[in-house]
């Protein structure tokens, strides 16, 4: 059900906007870079999909990508 939110670390500049939008899932390290609360890939549950999409649209570096949920994703 949950969709992985992938952070492109080469693009991210640690602006912290995603942490503002998804405080439940994303914190900030001491440099301002996003840090997954779970310590693993950020998984967005359906009820947080709206703010997650908003983060993808508003990220100043376009560094976020919301993937299809794990079940329907074609792996390869």
């Amino acid at each position, binding site marked *: 059900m949950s969709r992985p939110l992938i*952070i492109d*670390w*080469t*693009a991210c*500049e*640690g*602006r*912290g*906007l995603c942490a*503002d*939008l998804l405080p439940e899932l994303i914190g900030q*390290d001491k*440099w*301002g*870079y996003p*840090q*997954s609360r779970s*310590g*693993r*890939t*950020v998984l967005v549950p359906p009820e947080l999909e709206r703010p997650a999409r908003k983060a*993808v*649209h*508003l990220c*100043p*570096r*376009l560094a976020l990508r919301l993937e299809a949920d794990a079940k329907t994703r074609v792996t390869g």
Partner: protein
Amino acid sequence: MSTDALWYLARGSGVVSLILFTVVVALGIGTRSGRGFAGMNRLAVASVHRAASLLALVFLVIHVSTLLFDPYAQLGLVDVVVPFGSGHRPFWVGLGTLALDLALAVAITSLLRERIGLRAWRAVHWLAYAMWPIALAHGIGSGSDRSTGWMLAIDALCVLTVLAVAVSTHPAFRDTETPSTTPQLVTTRGEQR
């Protein structure tokens, strides 16, 4: 509507549009610091920047469409898009046309940002730095209010706002406790593969 009412509406919407664009540019510059700004967090700054820019465009459209019906402005449809051809103060009115074109380019590419990619978007977005002074000059040069004290005061306030934000958020004025630029060595986080 009487032509007088049209004229007031045209002037008023032009002034409101300039003030809003000033706010938009100030927030755009403020957001570059990578932190909150003016008591807002990053998210709020980005959202207000976006919303205010669209509102500014709405006022800009009102401004231009009322002028199309204003007998004194003698503005044709072509003059709205192609600068420097209008019968009335062609240079100063042309600057307004140029500012409109640039504003549209900046806004439209922003709305298509995910499609056109970061590089192309950034390149066009920089035009905002040309657009705002051009709009300001247009207001000073072609407005009927240009010689009035209150309009000059608004213009001065707009310039001061942008300068103040540019200077106060400049990295050189930042306290050294917080990182000023992208740290280069923090990519080796263990988590999140």
